[in-house]
């Protein structure tokens, strides 16, 4: 026994402790933030505050919303992450606009998000972007498909709040309204375009019309209708 202890101690003393737990792992070496290339880490560090994923719910559309992923074109996603969406809460992340991510990291984020795109996509799939349709017809579509939650006039019902609040409408882009009409917020209980009226998905026209109706509800500070100049869609 004593001999074993002595042996261990002398081994230890002779510098055989180069394998001990305190030895720093080369992986723990400091690295530039621009070298981070893991999608999960990048997403958690940069996106999670506003865009939920998996179990996390956030204020804006979740980046694993299957309908959203089915319609959003890759170049749009890349452009929005790089440059942001002016006059909304979405900032740009590329160095060119003062952000902190490199081009490769934005590619990694884009690819990682699109990797969650479901194999089976709903049909008929409306295009991601389209001109707004007719607001009058849109009002009818709203009454049929949305009013049960958002109220007959759109200013809030039992289950969901107002979608015609002027402050709300001023804070979002036309495309955001269209995207939410298509993709919904399933994480917060709002169904996508296929499920609003069970068995009868909204058609392309209906999506465009109800978007137009939402846009037509924009009001300036004097309560008069106005349409703030929206940036051209990417």
């Amino acid at each position: 026994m004593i001999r074993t202890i002595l042996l261990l101690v002398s081994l230890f003393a002779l510098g055989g402790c180069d394998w001990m737990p305190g030895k720093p792992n080369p992986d723990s070496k400091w690295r530039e933030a621009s070298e981070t290339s893991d999608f999960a880490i990048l997403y958690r560090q940069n996106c999670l505050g506003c865009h939920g994923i998996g179990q996390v719910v956030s204020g804006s559309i979740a980046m694993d919303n299957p309908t959203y992923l089915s319609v959003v074109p890759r170049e749009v996603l890349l452009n929005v992450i790089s440059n942001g969406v002016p006059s909304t809460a979405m900032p740009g992340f590329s160095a060119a606009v003062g952000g902190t991510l490199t081009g490769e990291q934005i590619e990694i984020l884009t690819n990682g998000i699109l990797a969650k795109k479901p194999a089976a996509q709903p049909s008929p799939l409306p295009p991601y972007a389209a001109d707004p349709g007719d607001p009058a017809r849109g009002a009818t579509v709203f009454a049929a498909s949305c009013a049960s939650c958002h109220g007959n006039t759109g200013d809030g019902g039992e289950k969901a709040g107002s979608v015609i609040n002027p402050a709300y409408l001023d804070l979002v882009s036309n495309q955001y309204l269209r995207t939410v009409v298509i993709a919904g917020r399933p994480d917060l209980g709002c169904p996508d375009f296929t499920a609003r009226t069970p068995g009868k998905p909204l058609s392309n026209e209906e999506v465009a019309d109800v978007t137009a109706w939402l846009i037509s509800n924009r009001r300036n500070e004097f309560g008069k209708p106005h349409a703030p100049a929206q940036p051209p869609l990417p």
Partner: protein
Amino acid sequence: MNKLIHAARGVFLWVDDRLHLTKLYESTAGHHVPQSSGSWFYVFGSATLLCFMIQIATGILLAMVYVPSAAEAYTTLEYLTFHQYLGWFLRGVHYWGSNFMVGIMLLHMTQVFLFGAYKYPREITWITGVVLMVLTLGLAFTGQVMRFDEDAYWGLGIGVAIMGRVPLLGEQLVNMMLGGPIIASDTLSRFFALHVFVLPGGILALVSIHLRMVLTKGINEYPQPGMLVRRESYDKEYAAIIKKEGVPFFPKAISKDLVAAAVVIIGILACATFFGPKGPLGPPNPLQIDTLPRPDFYFLWIFAIAALMPDWMESVALLGGPVIIGIILFALPFFNGTGEKSWRRRPIAVLTVILTYVSLGLLTYLGHTSPWSPDMNAWRSAHTPKKFLEGRSPLELQGSLVIQSMQCRNCHAIDGIGGQRGPDLADVGARLTKDQLVRQVIQGGGNMPAYGKNLTPDQVDAVVAYMVSLRTPGVAAARDSSQPGRPPME
């Protein structure tokens, strides 16, 4: 056989005659100390000295690889940590050795204070001890700069900012500290000179005075309550104690010091082996500003004071504080040089120690958690728990996005997630009325910036609507007491 012993004795006597070994022994290790000083409470001084010896040994070995140049220090640190055989271990021993040295030195000082050992006639022992403490802290700070990473760079920046507050001489002091007007290679070189030559040299010189005082004025006897120190009679009393129960320090009173020494060495080695060295963190690249500068453990309390002090007294306290503490420590053996030694009859001394330790402990803890620092990345990474999003209107959801994109989360947590500088927003709707929220957001105040210029009216609407909704389900929104009839959400 007898002849052999006789010859050996002759050789010994010859050596002793030439080198005076017996005399040396009698006047140093063999000097007589009160038997009562062979106590566990008396081991901290020798243990501090032991730590210093370990620092010298490991420091010399580290200096064989380390290059004190701003361009190369970081590379050699990485080499030491990851490539040099056992380099990590030496760095670990040096790092933990410094922690132990500062810690044990504090224990030593506390024991000396509580046992009244600074009183007559050991004033100079105490004063050299205080200077040794300053030098040791100087070693700790300069040592932190030797680990030339981002913390070292910005730690120097903090030093500049403190020096720059000195009236009249500030600019010159900054230049002298940095070796130029900007943190650069000269800065590291002069901190290296301080850390490796000046401060250890000073410590060696002062330790020799410190120990000489122990020999000439004797080690403090274990104080008994009621035995008062009087200038007229103490020397005689001490001589009587030595005569009555004096034993040679070696070998009669050293055993506990030896045990403590082994415990300290094993403690340092164990920490180095199991926790390893600290850092290096990111390189000392000034352009790499995604950094969270923090001082090492022993200076966290100063870091905390700098955060918590009202700004009007900050310069006064940062510069005057050390001066006042220094004066008190220097003057202590003169205004309190006689009387009771035992801590059992010195309640104020005991209270002072407790207060000092509690404050240092709390401040260090606060410095460690530093709740006053914004979490610079919380705005894009801190999510909001689902219960604070469910059932919210589209406007309120936009408000939650405004809270993210306007970096509110850097200072405000929601349900504990996010920065800790400002109040948690999880129940803000129950605390503030809508009007109060609007005012707070637009005008700021109470350490919050005013957002009036940076938010559109729509964003204010959204963010306030969202915050009103932030409260425990079933709790009513805050009401304006001056208008009791008014519904909260109007």
